[in-house]
């Protein structure tokens, strides 16, 4: 599932979907969050909307990283040059993967225990789920040849 702001603003009779500082007006942030939650409820990935300035690679990388943190599984591109930047942002880093493996190993080494300490932090089931998701994504992205 993808969310989009352009046609929505036309449908609502809005002259713009942005605030003065360039961020999305509340209605469009709401649409984005509803798309994210609706996709999670359906068990399918949500993809974030476009980054329209295709020359602004740094801005795109930052926006895509923010989207991944929020739970999006990908982001749509409007220019071929954006594809590599987006794939990078949505691919777990080597550090992410190493940490996720340590989290999974820590729980597997302590079967039946719901909360464990790692690096001075307490971890519980949501952390284990997140770690497994990182490893699953890493396996699939690397396996598809999308990234090196």
């Amino acid at each position: 599932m993808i969310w989009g702001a352009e046609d929505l603003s036309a449908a609502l009779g809005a002259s713009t979907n942005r605030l003065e500082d360039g961020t999305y007006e509340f209605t469009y942030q709401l649409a984005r969050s509803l798309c994210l939650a609706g996709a999670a409820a359906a068990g399918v990935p949500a993809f974030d909307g476009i980054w329209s300035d295709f020359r602004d690679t740094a801005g795109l990388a930052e926006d895509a990283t923010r989207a991944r943190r929020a739970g999006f599984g990908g982001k749509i591109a409007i220019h071929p040059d954006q594809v590599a930047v987006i794939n990078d942002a949505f691919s777990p880093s080597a550090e992410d993967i190493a940490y996720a493996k340590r989290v999974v190993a820590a729980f597997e080494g302590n079967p039946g225990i719901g909360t464990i300490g790692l690096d001075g932090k307490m971890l519980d089931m949501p952390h284990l789920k997140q770690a497994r998701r990182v490893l699953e994504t890493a396996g699939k992205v690397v396996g598809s040849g999308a990234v090196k």
Partner: protein
Amino acid sequence: MASAAPDGIVLPKCDGAETLRRLDHYLDALEAAAGLAHGRISIIAVVTETAKSLFTLDSYARCYAAPGRHDLGRRGSVRRARR
């Protein structure tokens, strides 16, 4: 379109599961006519482009047989809607 065996298609202005299901039915027929495997063509729905669409975002949860039907590794696409 189906004879070109696309990996998937984008459905713009999707305003709920009913719209997605209608496309799913069309694709059932088109895939059969083109000799493609059932469910071969994925759908990516753009789900927030109409006023009504904002009130239907929970409807897709009833549209899929099971979580995990999609395969992010394959195409990063939303797999076909199922009754």
